[in-house]
C-alpha cells in the first residue's frame, strides 16, 4: 500500500493489521527510551493547511520515534500565502526528496489530488468534512484495548455528523469491525443522505445511551448557530449533550470518547470528561502508536521487522 487516504482503502483486514501492529508500538512507547531506528534516513513532511497542533504533533512524534526525519511545512508562513498553487507546493516538497507527506486540508479530497501528483506516500490527516482515517484507527484501537473487540458492540456517535470527518471515518472503521453504529443528532446535523451507510439513526440520546457500549461525542462548533442549523448551544446541550444526568443512563463499563478538542459544558459535562470510563486521554496516547504503525506499514522496506 502506498497511501492511506480512506479507511475504505484498508478494509477489515487492513484495519486489523494496523491494530495488531499498534500493540507493538504501544510497547515501544512505554519503554524508557521510546524509540526504534526502523525508519532511519526516511523523511516525513507534515503539510498542514489547517491548524491542528494535536494531530501534527502526534504524527511528528510517531515519525521521530521510528527514527525518521521530520519537516513541517507551515502554510501560514510560506509561499502559499504568496499565491502558490497546491500542486506547485507539493511538487516542491516532492523535489526535496521526501518519503511521506502527511496532509491536512480544509477541502475534502485534497489528499487524493496530492497522491496523484507525488510518488511519496500520502497520509490523510483530515480532509474537509470527509475523512480522518488515523483518528478512526486510534479510536478502534482504544475500544479494542478496553472492550476486547468491536464485534457486536453498540456504538453511538453523537453530534455534528454532517460536518465531521471523524464521524465518516469512524462509521467505516467501526462497522468494518462488526460494531453496530447509531448516529444521534438533530436532522440538520446529519448528512442529507445516508444511503449506503450501514448505520441506524436516532434523535433520542437517552434511549440510545441505555444500550450503548460506547458513546462517541463530536465537537460542537459555534459557527453552526449562525448557519441556522441549531437554535442555540443551550438547546443542543439540553437534547444532545452528555450531561451529568444523562451520563447515569450509561452502563458502568460503557466508554465515553471524544476526538478533542472538547467543549466542556456543551457536548460533554466537565465531570463526565474526567470520569473513569472516559478514555479521551488514552485516545491521544494511542494516537502516537497507531500513527507509528501506519508509517511503518507505508514506509518500512519489504520484510523489515521491528
Amino acid at each position, binding site marked *: 500500500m502506498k497511501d492511506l487516504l480512506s479507511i475504505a482503502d484498508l478494509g477489515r483486514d487492513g484495519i486489523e493489521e494496523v491494530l495488531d501492529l499498534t500493540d507493538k508500538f504501544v510497547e515501544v512507547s512505554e519503554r524508557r527510551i521510546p524509540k526504534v531506528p526502523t525508519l532511519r534516513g526516511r523523511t516525513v513532511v507534515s503539510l498542514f493547511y489547517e491548524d491542528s497542533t494535536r494531530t501534527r504533533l502526534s504524527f511528528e512524534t510517531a515519525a521521530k520515534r521510528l527514527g525518521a526525519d521530520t519537516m513541517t511545512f507551515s502554510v501560514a508562513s510560506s509561499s502559499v500565502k504568496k499565491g502558490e498553487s497546491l500542486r506547485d507546493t507539493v511538487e516542491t516538497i516532492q523535489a526535496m526528496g521526501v518519503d511521506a507527506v502527511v496532509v491536512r486540508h480544509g*477541502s*475534502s479530497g*485534497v489528499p*487524493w489530488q496530492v497522491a496523484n501528483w507525488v510518488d511519496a506516500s500520502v497520509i490523510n490527516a483530515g480532509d474537509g*468534512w470527509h475523512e480522518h482515517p488515523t483518528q478512526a484507527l486510534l479510536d478502534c484501537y482504544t475500544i479494542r484495548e478496553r472492550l476486547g473487540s468491536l464485534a457486536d458492540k453498540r456504538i453511538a456517535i453523537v453530534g455534528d455528523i454532517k460536518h465531521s470527518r471523524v464521524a465518516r471515518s469512524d462509521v467505516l472503521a467501526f462497522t468494518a469491525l462488526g460494531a453496530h453504529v447509531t448516529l444521534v443528532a438533530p436532522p440538520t446535523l446529519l448528512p*442529507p*443522505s445516508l444511503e*449506503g451507510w450501514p448505520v441506524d439513526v436516532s434523535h433520542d440520546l437517552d434511549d440510545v445511551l441505555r444500550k450503548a457500549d460506547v458513546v462517541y461525542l463530536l465537537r460542537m462548533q459555534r459557527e453552526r448557530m449562525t448557519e441556522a442549523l441549531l437554535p442555540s448551544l443551550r438547546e443542543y446541550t439540553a437534547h444532545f449533550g452528555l450531561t451529568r444526568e444523562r451520563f447515569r443512563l450509561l452502563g458502568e463499563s460503557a466508554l465515553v470518547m471524544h476526538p478533542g478538542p472538547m467543549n466542556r459544558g456543551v457536548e460533554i459535562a466537565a465531570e463526565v470528561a474526567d470520569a473513569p470510563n472516559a478514555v479521551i486521554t488514552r485516545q491521544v496516547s494511542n494516537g502516537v502508536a497507531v500513527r507509528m504503525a501506519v508509517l511503518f506499514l507505508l514506509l518500512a522496506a519489504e520484510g523489515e521487522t521491528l
Partner: protein
Amino acid sequence: MTTVLKGGEVVDETGRRQADVLIGDDGLVAAVGADLAGDRTLDCGGCVVSPGLVDLHTHLRQPGREEAETIESGSRAAALGGYTAVVAMPNTEPAIDSAGVVREILELGSKALCDVRPAAAITVGRAGEQLVPMAELAALGVRIFTDDGAGVQSSLLMRRALEYASSLGVTLAQHCEDAGLSHGAHMHEGEWSSRLGIPGMPAEAEELMVHRDIVLGRLTNAPVHFLHLSTAGSVQLVREAKARGLRVTAEAAPHHFTLTHAEVASYDPVFKVNPPLRTDADVEAVKAGLADGTIDAIATDHAPHAQELKESPFDEAPCGMLGLETALSLALTQLGLPIERVLALLSWQPARIAGVDTGPVEAGRPANLCVVDPSHQWTVDPARLASRSRNTPYAGRSMTGKVRHTVYKGEVVVLDGEAQR
C-alpha cells in the same frame, strides 16, 4: 471555386435522402441532387450531410479570460464539433451588457470559424440589480439575454425583465438556481455529497426557479428559455408547462445525460460543473425529455478553464467542462434516438431559439453544413482538442461518430476532421 459534397445522405427537417450537395462560390448551396460535379469534391461516403449544428450555450471567455479560450480558439473547437453557429454567453469580464462589448464580440466573431452570436446579460454586470439596455442590444442583433452562471434571484426584477423584453422579439434564458438553497455548494446534494463530505445543492434549488419562471412567463406572456436542465423535477415542470401551452423552451447539456455525481468520487475538479452532475434517475429523465420533445435542444455549456484552476481543491475550483468537440458523438450514441432526431436537437431546433437561419439543405440557402461520419471511432485526447483548455470530463473515453467536414458560409473550415485555419 465550387465544392461538391459527394455520396452522403442529406438529413434535415424535411427528411432523409441520398443526394450530393453543390456549394457555389457565393457561399450558398447551389444545388442538391444526384451526380453533381464541382471544382472540388469532398468524399461524404457513409456520412450524413446536415445543416450546421447550433450551440445555444458556449462560453468563449473573450474578453477577460483569454488564457482559457478565445473567440478564435472556441470557434475552431465549435467547427470541429460540427457547429456553424454558437451563442456566446455573456459572463465574460467585462460582462456582455453594453453595446460596446456586443460590438467587440461581433467584430471578433466576424473572423471566426463559425457564426458567433453574443447573448447579453439581463442585468448590468450580471449583478441582478439593473436591466441592461435591452432594446439597444436587440437592435445590434442580440436575441438571447441571460445572467448565466447565476439565476436572476429577484422575482420582481425577473418579472420586469420579462415584461420589458416581451416587446423586443427576444428571449430571456435562465440559469435556474435558488442561490439561498445552493449557498456554499459544490456538487449535487445526495448520496455522494454526503459520503464525500462536499456541501451539496439539492435538485430543488433548480426546480424552484424553473417553477417560478414558468409562472412569471405565464404572468408576462413572454418566452422563457431554460438553460441546462439537469433534474427530473425540472424536466417534468417544463413538460407540464408545455402541455398547458406556455411559451417555454429548454436545453440540456451532454454531461447531464452521460455522467452522474458518482464521478465526483475521484475529487477531480474536471467533474465540477453547475448545474452539478446529478443522479442516474435525473440522467434518465433528461434523456426522456430529449426524446419526447420536452427539451428542445442539446446545448454544450462549453466552459473552458485554465488547467491550474482545475487543479485547485474541489471546493475552490471553478465550475464547467468542455463540450463542443464531444457533444455530437455523445448525442449520437447515448440517447438511443434516430439520427434525424439527434440532429434536430443539435441543429434546427436550437437555431429557432437563437434566431439563426439554419433551414433545410436546399439551393439558395447559406452553405452552413456539417458532414458526420456516424461510425468513425475515436478516443478523446485532451491534448488534441482545439480548445485552449483541457477540462474535458471524457479524457480517454472512446467515442463513436465524428465530424468529417464542416462548411461555414461556403468555406470548408474542417476537412477530414482537421481545422483548415
